[in-house]
Structures are given as structure tokens and as C-alpha cells.
């Protein structure tokens, strides 16, 4: 008697899964196509054959430098940073059921930036130690925001408000340090404010890849519990999710990814914030947002960096382009959330 109903449920579930795979497939194609475009077309056009030969290890005059040293490292780093920002951002947004809860709004990226600027300008440091400090500061700020908003558990809105406050404080710290900074450190320090993939090197990609694999893997292994958290903490707990533990794991994973990416490319403005909602629009209710949001992040940074380099009248770092995209959306979202109290 129930058989037709069961069949229709199975059918609809499979249709949703198919659409989910299709969306992921299309986003993969988009990222791959943009990746190839950035390799082919910069200040000059490089024929695909030369690129392939360079990638195979041949020394093609001229191409070996532009592609091997400039375009390829930059493109790979851009993709990895985009994936990390997208995945880390959407994890926070889903967990706190609010698109404003992204790590760049609640201060985590600013924590990493402030530490880096402090290290460069005040301590006179440079190199990997700056990145390590930035990652630790990102984690520290996440803990601080979490602790400050803890009262009988953590409510999403309280955490967001505390986070916005902490961000403002960190931004003023950065502004103060920069105003006292000697001119020769400014160039290096400014990178930590807007986010940029200028001067990317292949050597930087490995640590980011490791961080992404480690923290991203951890996050994806909690994907089902994260999905259950969308029903509210009580319902999730009633469904057998250990809410507190799941939260801590997700925060560690997401902050780990965001801070590692920030340590290498600086806080590329609003990518973590934008990727989730854009992915949500594309995916609809056909399944998990994690992988689609990661791919959206990669596409955003790739396209943003390409625009900043070649399509605008002057050269801009990628963070300026994504910032210009993100700011109006932030205003729109605050207005809309204010009206409906809606979630992601």
C-alpha cells in the first residue's frame, strides 16, 4: 500500500542527488575553464601547446617564465585560497544558521591580519613566521569570540555581534600600527589588508594544500552532523548529534582553513562571506552546500584576480575586486535579515 509512496520518495531523492552532482560538475568545469584561461591569456597570449610543453617540464623560451613562474603558481594558489575561504565560510554560516556568521565578518580574518601587520611593522619579521603568527592569531580570535559570547551555550546572533565588535577593534589596531609604520614596511603590510595573490610562488602552495586536505577532510567527515545542525541545536541533539563536540570540530576545521589561506594570500575580502549564499542559490535544496561553496570560492577568486589584473583600467589586488562585489551584498543581506530574520 505504501509502495507507490516509497517509490516517489526514492525517485525525488535520486533526482535531488543528480542535480547536486550536476551543480558540482558545472562548477568544476567553470573553475577548470577559468584556470586554463588564466594560463593562456595574460598580458600576452600563450599557445596551449607551449603551456603543455612547459607543464611537461620542457624549457620553452619565454613561456617557462611567464607560465611556469608567474601564471601557474598564481592560478594554483588562487584556487587553493578560494577553496579554503569558500569551505571555511560556508561551514560557519551553516553552523550558526546565519549568512552574516562568516569568518571575515566575525573577526577571524582580521585577527590573522592584525597579527601579521604587527609582526611585520612592529617586530620587523618576515617570511613563514609571519604566517604562523597569523594562523595562531586567527585561532585565538575565534576562541576569544566564542568565549565572549558564551552564556548557556552559544547563540548565533550573540556570536555575530561580539565578532563584529572584535573586528572593529582589530581594524583600529591595524590602522594604528599602519599610521606609525615606516614607509618601507608598508608595501608588505598592506597585502594583509586587501588580500592579494601577487608574487605567488609554487613553494607556498604545498602548505596550503596540506591544510586544505587536513581541515577540509575533517569538515567533510562532519557534513551530515553539520546538515542536522540546520534544524536547530535541540533538534540536532535529539537526532543523536553531539552538538558541542561537533561545533568545536567544525570551528577548528573552518578556522584552520581560513587562517592558513589568509596567511598566504591575505584576507581576500568577502570571499568566505559570498561563496555560501551564492552556492545556496545555485544548489537550492538539492543537497549539501559544502563542496559547491568551496568551488564557488575558487571561481570567485580566480575571476576576481583575473579582472583585477587585466580587465580593469589599472591593476588591482584581487581583494579590491571581491570587496567591491561583496560590500553591496552585505548591505542587502543586513536589510533582508532585518526584515525576515531568515537564515542561509
Amino acid at each position, binding site marked *: 500500500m505504501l509502495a507507490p*509512496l516509497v517509490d516517489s*520518495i526514492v525517485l*525525488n531523492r535520486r533526482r535531488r542527488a543528480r542535480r547536486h552532482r550536476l551543480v558540482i560538475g558545472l562548477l568544476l568545469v567553470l573553475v577548470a575553464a577559468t584556470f586554463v584561461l588564466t594560463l593562456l591569456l595574460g598580458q600576452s597570449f600563450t599557445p596551449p601547446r607551449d603551456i603543455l610543453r612547459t607543464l611537461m617540464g620542457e624549457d620553452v623560451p619565454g613561456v617557462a617564465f611567464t607560465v611556469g613562474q608567474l601564471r601557474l603558481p598564481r592560478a594554483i594558489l588562487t584556487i587553493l585560497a578560494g577553496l579554503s575561504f569558500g569551505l571555511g565560510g560556508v561551514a560557519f554560516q551553516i553552523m550558526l544558521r546565519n549568512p552574516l556568521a562568516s569568518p571575515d565578518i566575525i573577526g577571524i580574518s582580521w585577527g590573522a591580519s592584525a597579527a601579521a601587520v604587527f609582526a611585520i611593522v612592529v617586530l620587523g619579521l618576515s617570511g613563514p613566521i609571519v604566517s604562523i603568527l597569523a594562523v595562531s592569531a586567527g585561532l585565538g580570535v575565534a576562541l576569544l569570540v566564542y568565549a565572549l559570547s558564551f552564556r*548557556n551555550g552559544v547563540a548565533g546572533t550573540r556570536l555575530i555581534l561580539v565578532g563584529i565588535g572584535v573586528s572593529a577593534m582589530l581594524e583600529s589596531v591595524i590602522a594604528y600600527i599602519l599610521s606609525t609604520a615606516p614607509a618601507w614596511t608598508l608595501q608588505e603590510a598592506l597585502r594583509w589588508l586587501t588580500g592579494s595573490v601577487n608574487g605567488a610562488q609554487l613553494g607556498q602552495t604545498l602548505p596550503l594544500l596540506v591544510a586544505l586536505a587536513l581541515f577540509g577532510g575533517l569538515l567533510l*567527515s562532519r557534513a*551530515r552532523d553539520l546538515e542536522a545542525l*540546520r534544524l536547530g541545536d*535541540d533538534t540536532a541533539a535529539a*537526532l543523536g548529534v553531539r552538538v558541542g563536540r561537533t561545533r568545536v570540530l567544525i570551528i577548528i576545521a573552518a578556522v584552520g582553513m581560513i587562517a592558513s589561506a589568509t596567511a598566504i594570500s591575505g584576507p581576500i575580502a568577502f570571499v568566505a562571506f559570498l561563496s555560501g549564499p551564492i552556492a545556496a542559490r545555485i544548489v537550492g*535544496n538539492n543537497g549539501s552546500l559544502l563542496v559547491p561553496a568551496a568551488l564557488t570560492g575558487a571561481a570567485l577568486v580566480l575571476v576576481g584576480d583575473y579582472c583585477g589584473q587585466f580587465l580593469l583600467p589599472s591593476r588591482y589586488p584581487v581583494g579590491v575586486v571581491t570587496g567591491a562585489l561583496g560590500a553591496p551584498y552585505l548591505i542587502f543581506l543586513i536589510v533582508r535579515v532585518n526584515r525576515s530574520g531568515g537564515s542561509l
Partner: protein
Amino acid sequence: MKPHTLLANGLSAGYGETLILDGLDLAVPPGRITVIVGANACGKSTLLRTLSRLLPARKGQVLLDGKSIHRIPSRDLARTLGLLPQSPIAPEGITVADLVSRGRHPHQGVFSRWTREDDEAVAAALAATKTDDLSERPIDELSGGQRQRVWIAMALAQQTDLLLLDEPTTFLDISHQIEVLDLLTDLNQTRGTTIVMVLHDLNLAARYADHLVAMTKGRLHVAGPPEAVLTEDHVRQVFGLESRIITDPTSGRPTMLPIGRHRMIAPAIKEPL
């Protein structure tokens, strides 16, 4: 089906500094419908949250089948005891079938695939709550009564022998309240599901309860069959309200008529009706 026993012994729990449950003892009769009533802020919701381990006990313990619930792995607990909170959150645009399938969470592993059993449980839950013809509709488009049936369907898909519900009839008009309570009674009678729920309406509580529990200030005030619990004395002690109790001619259960300061044509003293 083996009936599960749920017991609370000297249970104290609360939020922050404040203690809301204060040494409460409760025995939930297996296979029956237990309804908890009490004034606002007496700890009814806190009791349900502590019974289902959403809130840790400060003192005392909750025993499920004689075992402290803190010793039971989360997933095992979620396969035996379900809870529908007062205001669950539906993700924007989610369809009814998708939401109800979330009830299968404790039956699935980290990477496990959907099984025929999962789909059948979802179908049975949709059919039992008469939400099968809504299954592909987004939940935001439904009326309050339909939505509440969908949440109950999700709890049913979880297939627990014990089901706790926090005010499942709030915000529903009277016909939908009856519909939800009838549905829960069906569930109790056909599957033997033990039901524990908090209700605001004393008369509906007395009508649908096998076991009625009245709470005051974080303690159990009185518990037993509705006839023994819904009395004029108890209503005065629990709610601070004068009332008259009569027998509902259709259900044979006690019904409470409140007495206020106005609109009285008979003196508010006891005399045979």
C-alpha cells in the same frame, strides 16, 4: 515491542546560576500517554530537555531502562528516545519529504547510503501524519497545522519507542490541536509508542492523558489518572486559580471551568450543579 522505562530520580537542572528543576521525581508509565501541565516557568520544558539529555542534570539522574542516560551513546539514545522541541527550525525552502528524511539521521552512519528501510520509514511517517500529498511542497508554504504534522512526521521517521513533545499544539487553532492530539493517540494505540508531552490546555490534557503530571516550581506536585489530578484543590495549588470541575459528557474526563472576578451568575462556592 519491549516497553522502555523512563525514570527521573531527584532531578535538579537549570541554566547558569538559576536552578529550574529542584529534586524532581518522575516515573513515565511505559506504553501510555503522559501529559505534563503547570504554570508558566515551572520547568516543564526544562524537564523534557533534561529527560532527553539536551540539558545535563546537576543532581539526581535520568534512567532509561535502568541505565543512566549519560552512559548511553548519543546515537543509541536517539534511536530509542525522540524529542520534538517547542520551536524547531526549518531550513529555508526545504521540502516536506526532505525534512522528514532528516529523522533517519541516527539510523545512518557517516558515509552510509540510503537503504530501502530508510525510505519505507519516511513513507510510513508521511502516511501516518497524512502529509504524503504534501511531500514535495516547501515547508514555508504550509499552514501551521500542516507544518506541525510534518515535524511530528520527522519524529516518527526516527522510529523511537519513546517520544517527548514540547507543546505540540501551541499556535494551532482548536481543530488542528485536536487533529495533532488524535494523531499522537493513534500512534500510541497502534504502535505502543510511549508519549510524554507538555500541554497548556488543562482540559485537553485531561482528555488525552493516561497519566497526568502537575508541576510547581521545579517539582512534581501531583501525578496520576486525570480524575485524581484535575481537581479544584490542585488547580488552586498549581495555578492559584479558583475553578469548578465538571465531567465532560463526551469523554467522561474531568473538565475545568475557571472562575474569575467577572461574568459570574452563580456564586463561586461549591454547590451541586
